[in-house]
């Protein structure tokens, strides 16, 4: 770790500092003051104006301007409205929302109340996956404490503002992070997305106007109110303000959470904060945006990270998962991994996503088995674009992204698989080949005795041979041989 202060923590400001099960500690950190300030000093419209001025954009992935969303929901006239917190964090390798809810649950509750005040809702719902038991437990404690002390409930801080929050549990379906599917799931229906418009801000939960924001978005709100929009909008880049939390995972030394100002480069995140690649290996790629995102190469290491630059680079911000890959990772297999995830999580409602992704997966499978052709790469591209263009929701529309971005950035690796029958990273087992070098083999029989499938033959003190038709490429012989007589190609 070289530089030590690249990080600025806004959403994570209290995580690891306060006891999340004690509301007193949150209050001592100016907790609920933003709510107090809004209720006493600002009208809902003024508060919304402040959020708009801050430039805050949705941290769940879409990047929609938060203030604008609140304004739209506020402008819809209705007796009942809802504030929903999307805590259905589902990207592989992303865990920032969990960490915020486990470390600082009150910041989310406070922001939801502020949102309720702004849009005219008296009810908040947190949709959280049941796979986060600790976060649920801490939220329950936080809600109970806030009610007891009067910061949730009726006539909050002596004002004519009522707001209460309940939890709704999800079963951990990825598609339920999509807001229309999330709302259906909360209503007790199948978690399937529906066409927008109408947007939830017009017709959402129970057909009422509903404002859905992500955990991290909410966690940033109290700071914007307390420190002012003009403090917040000085951080970041022209179109992406503030900070973003990233969950670093994969082949990186400092696995964990970081929060950096928008515009920090990938290199700073990976090498300076993240401590570089495990075992000093070569950086290959970083995957952002989860199954909807893409893989960035080292050419993008110096690109300032913000919403627009990531899209331009062929990936997306997503919820902030960053999976780092090194020279030993096969990009075709990585694309296949993400498609496996999509296959499992596709709700099956529309054909391009349900069937198309299956076909994409089959082609990738074929390539990793060494049976692919150059035409298969073109087929992948065509099919990917069809799925993108014709799927109903964001899951389908973005599911081919890992395939397209790995082809765009690592076409050579695909070609090595289909043309030379080689996997450059040595990951695709079907493309590996173990051979015994005759001159080096002493006939010690060690490999023969350890081969689990009896693929090795040979007399004692004479060179041995591997029967390629029987070999399962387990690599045991390679590891056992004391004379370096076995090669891997």
């Amino acid at each position, binding site marked *: 770790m070289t530089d030590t202060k690249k990080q600025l923590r806004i959403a994570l*400001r209290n995580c690891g*500092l306060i*006891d999340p099960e004690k509301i007193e500690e949150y*209050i*001592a*950190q100016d907790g609920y003051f933003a709510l107090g300030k809004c209720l006493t000093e600002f009208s809902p419209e003024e508060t919304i104006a402040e959020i708009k001025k801050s430039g805050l954009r949705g941290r769940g992935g879409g990047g929609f301007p938060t203030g604008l969303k609140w304004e739209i929901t506020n402008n819809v006239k209705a007796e009942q409205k809802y504030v929903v917190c999307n805590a259905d964090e589902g990207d592989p390798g992303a865990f920032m929302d969990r960490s915020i809810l486990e470390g600082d649950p009150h910041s989310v509750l406070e922001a939801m109340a502020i949102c309720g005040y702004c849009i005219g809702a008296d009810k908040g719902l947190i949709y959280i996956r049941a796979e986060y038991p600790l976060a649920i437990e801490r939220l329950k404690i936080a809600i109970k404490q806030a009610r*007891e002390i009067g910061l949730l409930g009726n006539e909050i*801080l002596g004002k004519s503002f009522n707001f209460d929050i309940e939890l709704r549990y999800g079963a951990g379906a990825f598609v339920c992070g999509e807001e229309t599917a999330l709302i259906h799931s909360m209503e007790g229906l199948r978690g399937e997305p529906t066409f927008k418009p109408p947007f939830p801000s017009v017709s959402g939960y129970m057909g009422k106007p509903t404002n859905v924001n992500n955990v991290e978005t909410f966690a940033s709100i109290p700071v914007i109110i307390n420190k002012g929009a003009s403090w917040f909008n000085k951080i970041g880049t022209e179109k992406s303000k503030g900070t973003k939390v990233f969950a670093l995972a994969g082949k990186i030394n400092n696995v964990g*959470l970081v929060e950096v100002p928008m515009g920090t480069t990938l290199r700073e995140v990976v090498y300076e904060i993240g401590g570089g690649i495990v075992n000093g290996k070569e950086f290959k790629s970083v995957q952002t945006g989860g199954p909807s995102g893409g893989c960035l190469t080292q050419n993008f290491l110096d690109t300032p990270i913000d919403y627009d630059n990531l899209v331009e680079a062929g990936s997306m911000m997503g919820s902030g998962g960053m999976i780092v890959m090194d020279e030993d990772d096969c990009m075709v297999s990585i694309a296949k991994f993400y498609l496996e995830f999509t296959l499992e999580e596709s709700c099956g409602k529309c054909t391009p996503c349900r069937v198309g992704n299956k076909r994409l997966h089959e082609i990738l499978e074929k390539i990793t088995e060494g049976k692919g052709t150059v035409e298969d790469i073109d087929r992948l591209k065509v099919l990917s674009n069809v799925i993108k263009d014709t799927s109903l929701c964001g899951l389908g529309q973005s599911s081919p992204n890992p395939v397209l971005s790995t082809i765009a950035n690592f076409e050579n690796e695909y070609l090595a698989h289909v043309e030379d029958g080689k996997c450059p990273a040595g990951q695709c087992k079907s493309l590996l080949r173990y051979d015994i070098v005759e001159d080096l083999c002493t006939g010690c029989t060690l490999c023969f005795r350890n081969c689990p499938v009896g693929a090795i033959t040979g007399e004692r003190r004479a060179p041995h041979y591997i029967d390629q038709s029987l070999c399962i490429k387990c690599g045991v012989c390679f590891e056992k041989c004391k004379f370096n007589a076995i090669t891997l190609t």
Partner: protein
Amino acid sequence: MLKIKSLADLNRIREELKSGNGRGGNKNIQEQLVQIKVGMATCGIASGAKDIMKLFIEECENQAIDVEVHQTGCLGYCYAEPMVEVRLPDSKPVVFGYVDKKRAKQIIEKYIIQGEQIEGEIPISFQTIYD
């Protein structure tokens, strides 16, 4: 705690908490106690933080050390869990990573009781809005 019925109430309670009746990340409270925070988010617990927290509570009680042990969330250094932050009276907090039982005992014996510097400190590499 009483109900908070106005912004003035909230203000008063905050000042009380900051001046010593409460705890937390604020700086000028209960300076005379050794304060220990154990990271107890999912990442910490998965690495064994519950046992470490228990060990600190029991061991400090056995040795009659005047200490407060709290739980807290994740500092973001998930690779180094379990993590423990120790603040000795009149000093800056120090964060230790990879705290297993052996290390925990070492922290109590060497750092807390004898005030010796020990290895394994994780430098805090971020600013918060409070800095």
